[in-house]
């Protein structure tokens, strides 16, 4: 009897927490397709708000994807070889480098954005282009790629594979292309999903770095929350959910597969 009461209590509490997290998201999705949120769903369902958001913000949403994919490209080029070098070299220097590139995770985005503005704000062309946002996103997401790839290297003893290939006479470049990268694939994939998800949702840096002509999706969200009707803001949030949830699900599935393996 008593244990059943405890079970019910815990279940109730857990459900309450889940409701706290999920109910507003559901409300937002409903509000985004409701004619008049104040009157409720009885006022009818519509896609007019979604269409309106799309007309207003399509370039913003497109730029978000451009930035996210460019961020991914840069983190792949800079992160994967670096993870390999850091792993093979090891030692104190490698640890120090890892520590430094991980710092942007601890330092608030606002501070990094301010630092970038102070240093490069004067370079007008660069400041005004979306590359300025790209730089911020790269600094923020690089550690995720590097760590994700290094985690794989640590688990499969890449050094032995590498040395084996070397003893057969393969050049460093060839080994990197034919041995290292194929073996690092799970880490690269996990890191890539992380980088794209984080870049699409990044606000703290982006809000400071953006210009009226270079807005990304979360910046548009903040605009909409501040100045639009609840329905429009909700419709915009709905679009964001539609984009981010599949990425999250993919990440979860990848994580489950990693646990089974």
């Amino acid at each position, binding site marked *: 009897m008593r244990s059943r009461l405890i079970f019910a209590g815990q279940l109730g509490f857990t459900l309450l927490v889940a409701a706290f997290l999920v109910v507003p998201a559901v409300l937002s999705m409903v509000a985004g397709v409701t004619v008049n949120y104040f009157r409720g769903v009885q006022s009818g369902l519509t896609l007019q708000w979604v269409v309106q958001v799309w007309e207003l913000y399509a370039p913003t949403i497109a730029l978000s994807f451009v930035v996210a994919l460019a961020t991914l490209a840069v983190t792949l080029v800079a992160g994967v070889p670096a993870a390999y*070098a850091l792993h093979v070299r090891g030692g104190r220097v490698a640890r120090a480098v890892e520590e430094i590139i991980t710092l942007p*995770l*601890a330092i608030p985005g606002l501070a990094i954005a301010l630092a970038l503005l102070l240093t490069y704000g004067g370079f007008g062309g660069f400041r005004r282009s979306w590359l300025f946002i790209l730089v911020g996103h790269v600094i923020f997401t690089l550690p995720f790629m590097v760590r994700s790839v290094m985690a794989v290297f640590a688990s499969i003893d890449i050094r032995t594979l590498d040395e084996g290939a070397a003893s057969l006479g393969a050049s460093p470049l060839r080994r990197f292309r034919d041995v290292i990268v194929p073996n690092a694939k799970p880490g690269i994939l996990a890191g890539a999903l992380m980088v794209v998800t984080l870049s699409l949702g990044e606000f703290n840096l982006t809000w400071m770095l953006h210009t009226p002509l270079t807005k990304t999706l979360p910046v548009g969200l903040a605009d909409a929350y501040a100045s639009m009707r609840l329905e429009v803001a909700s419709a915009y*949030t709905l679009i964001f959910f539609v984009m981010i949830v599949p990425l999250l699900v993919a990440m979860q599935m990848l994580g489950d597969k990693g646990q089974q393996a």
Partner: protein
Amino acid sequence: MSQSNFLRLCLAPLLILTVAFFLLPMARLIVTGAAGPQGLGGYVAIVTEPRYRATLINTVVLAAATTLVSLAVATVAGMFLQRHRFPGRSVLIAMLTFPLAFPGVVVGFMIILLAGRQGLIGDITRLVAGEKVVFAYSIWGLFFGYLYFSVPRVILTIMAAIQKLDRGLEEAARSLGASPFAVQRDVVLPALKPAFVASGAIAFATAMGAFGTAFTLATNIDVLPMLIYTEFTLAANLATAASLSVSLGLIAWAILALARSMSGGTVAAAG
């Protein structure tokens, strides 16, 4: 090409990016913080100037409260989910972790939908008590926003730690006559300490620096990120904004470094 040259080449892009777009700007930020009319005193002012000090205290208290409540919530829910198997369990876990990818602005909007002027809580309280409760734009809104942000993160770490707990220890304690409460207090909670430290530090550091949620909600709540933002954009007070940013970064980094040395594992914040 020799192996060591190749490794250097592998590291080059990362090092160039990091030096040019992180280390150099951070150095510039630190210098700017001391370049105001007060010089290095700009850093001291954070503690001596009453308005800045009050904001700093506000921010720390809010972050600490968020951390403690997130840990408590995550432990109760995580323990329950990890120790019982029932239909719908995986759906419940998914519900508790899916807001992981929401940026701070979206979290702010979620709180507005819950407790804003047209919010659900306002509607319910008006029906039940006849009075509309609206707290989204106060410090309570911010607190719940941070909670929304950190619960999914904390719960993942705690659940993983609970899964690794050795149930034999609990059974041993019970067989020796310990009450369920004593088992929790003396066996389970101490074993979870590294997970508490690691996830608590992330929650704390993230709440200290969270800007998006505060930006969406807080029209007149003084927390450090908002103060930095207003000093920078409205007052164009570069030196103060910089010195506050450096201090905020130092606090967040120190908390994470401390947690890492305490828990021995790797700790990384996100979001």
